[in-house]
């Protein structure tokens, strides 16, 4: 019995997909959520856990969110890892303001999220008091699974909020714009 070859099978044009139907917003969001360039703002011991999550063993790259850019101009996901003191807060704010839209903020660990047990004069009681945080990861430090959970949740959020929403998102314009 002669088996039909793949090439001669009816209705198939080789292995490639010849066309896909989608909406432009969905396609843009899809591209954004799987190419998150991150800016790791690492200040404290959570950095060790962040390295563990980002490096080969746990491999954050599986989620399309691994490439660290050490210039805020090239990053679109700000990961704040560790305690932020009031002395450091202006630096963090400036890094955020230097990032181009669209941009997202992930607060990594208890200290960045709420100040943690540094409930005192020196520490910012959660970076959400100065920045718009999209996803907060709990834990002291968070395990890699929590980090990936947060990345997946952020990707869902990016997909849902759509292209236009991000384009018009100006929740925290720079100080000059706010004064006008």
């Amino acid at each position, binding site marked *: 019995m002669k088996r039909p070859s793949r090439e001669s099978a009816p209705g198939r044009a080789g292995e490639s997909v010849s066309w896909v139907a989608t909406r432009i917003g969905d396609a843009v969001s899809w591209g954004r959520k799987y190419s998150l360039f991150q800016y790791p703002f690492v200040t404290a011991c959570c950095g060790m856990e962040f390295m563990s999550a980002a490096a080969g063993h746990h491999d954050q790259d599986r989620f399309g969110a691994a490439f660290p850019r050490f210039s805020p101009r090239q990053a679109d996901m700000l990961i704040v890892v560790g305690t932020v003191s009031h002395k450091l807060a202006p630096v963090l704010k400036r890094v955020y303001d230097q990032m181009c839209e669209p941009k997202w903020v992930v607060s990594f660990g208890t200290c960045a999220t709420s100040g943690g047990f540094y409930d005192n004069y020196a520490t910012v*009681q959660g970076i959400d*008091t*100065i920045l718009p945080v999209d996803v907060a990861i709990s834990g002291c430090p968070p395990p890699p699974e929590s980090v990936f959970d947060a990345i997946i949740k952020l990707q869902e959020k990016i997909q849902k909020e759509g292209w236009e929403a991000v384009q018009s998102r100006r929740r925290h314009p720079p100080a000059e714009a706010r004064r006008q």
Partner: protein
Amino acid sequence: MKQQPSHGIRQEAGPVFHELRGKFPRIVRDGWQEPPLEVVVIEKDSIARVAGYLRESWGVAALMDLTVVDYQGYAGGKKPARFEVVWYFQSFESGRRIRIKAAVPDTDPVVPSLSGLYASADWLEREAWDMFGIGFTGHPGLRRILMYEEFSGHPLRKDYPLAKEQPLVEQVHPGVPPFGAKPKALGGE
């Protein structure tokens, strides 16, 4: 290293105290031993003289640490002066460790600087100034070292509210009650 059984137990004054007492009878107030430390209590304005003498006669080579105690609200025993400045000296030749203490009143929180004798005194004194507001006469540049210049007050003083923040960045969520604020009553009374 095995600890001696006498470790940390207060004992009678040692040779450093007796020699300092003989040399500076008006300056030296009290002294005892807490092995491996020897403790001498002196008048605050004479620390530079005492430190210089220790360096020459006892081979003290390093100022290991400088700390301050705030005794506001202290309830144990005799009421001490508001502050107490504590210097830790170390001799590497003999292994001897000497702790010098001096009472510093709230009205005149100033002591002489040791930055001319020990380079390590520079940052230690800046920290004491930053955290407790103790002044050091003769310090080459007494300014804050841990907190930012805009910060007002000295945060480790007992009368500084622990959670009183002085943010540099505009807060985007004002209205969040500070930690420790009384929660609103949930009905009832």
